[in-house]
């Protein structure tokens, strides 16, 4: 049994966005086609809003034995537009592989983000989901874009798993898939075609002998180094004309990241803000609006 012809997929989403469901449906569809497939999440303490991963392996020929994480994917699907600039989504993507992104940005614009021998596909899945599903959850919509670009599964084989999972809502989800299939724009990424090189921090982990006795941590408050601002899909904007400088936004901020400036007005710290929207909801004078991330 050779394991060489397995297709590996990595899904990038945020906790709560349903990347795991995308992977589940893909595997179930492949199995429905008589293929062998796996779907699995990255098991971790990630919470709603945090960047998360889900994975697939599909093989037409043989049972799949590998149970490790996917590190050299053939296909990468990015559910959240913001993740493209936050995480190295093409990490390990095989030459000739496909990168499929939900974004309102043009394909030309996105091409400038990457350097490699890959296919790039772009679809505005958020608009499709909002229109057809009345909610910005793109996990099923992006399946349409994936099928069109990479063809890892057939559109027809999605119907049954979708019905099983979504019942009455399956029809609208399938419609969203089809619309994504029809509107996905496919192009190429080239080696050296990158306009803006981004660097992504890799945290250095201590060795066993660097750990303090009993794994104690004396660097208190050190989570401050950790950017939770990556989690948001919307951010608060203040209208200072309406602001009465009461500070209720600051008091009710679960990230403790809304601070009073020298001029007395309040602002959130983008590095931590998870975009929950409590500040906007609770502001007595409606001085705060939540605005979608670009």
């Amino acid at each position, binding site marked *: 049994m050779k394991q060489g012809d397995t297709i590996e997929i990595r899904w990038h989403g945020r906790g709560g966005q349903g990347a795991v469901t995308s992977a589940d449906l893909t595997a179930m569809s492949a199995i429905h086609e008589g293929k062998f497939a796996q779907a699995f999440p990255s098991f971790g303490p990630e919470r709603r809003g945090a960047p998360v991963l889900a994975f697939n392996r599909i093989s037409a020929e043989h049972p799949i034995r590998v149970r490790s994480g996917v590190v050299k994917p053939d296909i990468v699907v990015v559910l959240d537009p913001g993740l493209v600039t936050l995480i190295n989504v093409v990490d390990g993507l095989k030459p000739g592989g496909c990168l499929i992104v939900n974004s309102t940005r043009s394909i030309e614009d996105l091409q400038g983000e990457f350097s490699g021998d890959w296919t790039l596909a772009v679809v505005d899945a958020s608009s499709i989901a909002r229109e057809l599903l009345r909610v910005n959850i793109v996990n099923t919509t992006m399946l349409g874009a994936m099928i069109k670009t990479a063809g890892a599964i057939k559109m027809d084989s999605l119907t049954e798993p979708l019905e099983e999972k979504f019942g009455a809502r399956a029809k609208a989800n399938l419609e969203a898939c089809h619309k994504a299939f029809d509107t996905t724009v496919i192009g190429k990424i080239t080696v050296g075609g990158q306009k803006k090189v981004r660097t992504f921090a890799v945290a250095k982990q201590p060795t066993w*002998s660097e750990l303090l*006795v*009993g*794994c*104690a941590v004396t660097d*208190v408050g050190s989570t401050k180094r950790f950017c939770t601002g990556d989690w948001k899909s919307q951010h608060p904007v203040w209208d200072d004309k309406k602001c009465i400088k009461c500070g209720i936004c600051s008091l009710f901020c679960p990230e403790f990241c809304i601070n009073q400036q020298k001029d007395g007005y309040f602002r959130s710290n983008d590095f931590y803000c998870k975009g929950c929207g409590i500040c906007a909801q609770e502001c007595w004078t409606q001085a705060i609006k939540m605005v979608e991330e670009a």
Partner: protein
Amino acid sequence: MTAKRIGIESSLAIAEAVRLANVDVIAAYPITPQTHIVEGLAEMVANGHLDAEYIPVESEHSAMSSCLGSSAVGARTFTATASQGLILMHEVLLVAASLHLPIVMVVTNRALSGPLNIWGDHSDTMITRDSGWIQIFVENGQQAFDQVLCAFRIAEHQDVLLPTIINVDGFHISHVIEPMYFLDQEAVDGFLPPYKHPHALDPDKPVTMGCFAMPNLYTESRKALDTSLRESKKVILETWKKFGEMTGRYYKEVETYKAEAAETLLITMGSYSENAMEAIDKMQSEGRSVGLVRIRLWRPFPYMAFLEAVSGAKNIVVLDRAMSLGGPPPVCSEIRSALYPQEKRPQVVSVVGGLGGRDISPDDFEKLIDIGLGRIKIGDTSETIMFGVRE
């Protein structure tokens, strides 16, 4: 130094050692056969003979949890338990080791349910074998007294900071009145430096204890703990040396009795070792080439000292007072794995006996050795012998 010779029940001698160690906190829940130790301590606290907080907790789980708390603020901490109590504590024991909290605990070894049995064997402590605690076995009341004092010094040493169990056989040691030598307060104070934890919970130096570790650090945390436990042996040996110089009572990780040049060696741990000595004396007087090896330090396991002790033997009979249901018993598997890489290996036969308080008298030990040798003679050492079981 002057030492007073007195007759006292071992449990009370243990309590006296704890008092001399001037512990700050005792958290304990009563269980047979540990009760006399904690009753003794409660009485000392009530009478003002020991200035300590005695927390009469509502379970052993809470006993060990309270010990975590008090040890983490830098208070010298003691508890005692047995059997079901030890296994109810079990999940807390692992945390005590991983947080490097040097709690000292006496386990009056007792069988495990079911069926319920309050008498002695080593089943309870064998289940905690892999918990990261230092584990030391004693054979009589004097050793119990001595090792409790040594345990504080070992556990709290800045190079160790690991919790330590002193295994004292239930009833056979705990409830026996014997002659003993105590130490005076001055001697103990000189022997035991004050306890300090480098990262104690302190508002002036805030620390976080008990982070969770993801796959990228859990392995490192376990390696760090395992290394500390293995390296604690150095401090254990140093402590015993110092104690020996002070009292004339020297301890070793593996003790032998008339083992030199013996063809056959019996391996024991705990109180039955003294019964076995009687048997060895008798058999040697009859011209038999038998000797005794007693493992005192169970964790970290003293591989080198053990191999040295058995290097001349042809046959080894290992007595386990615990079972590993469905597999080889714990001491024997340890010994077999220690011997396996050796070029010249003795034959090893495994015997389980002394379960749930079943006696193994000196006469029985003679039979036990002979049964073991019989198996070796016919070349059938694959199965464990259950000594004295009614067929």
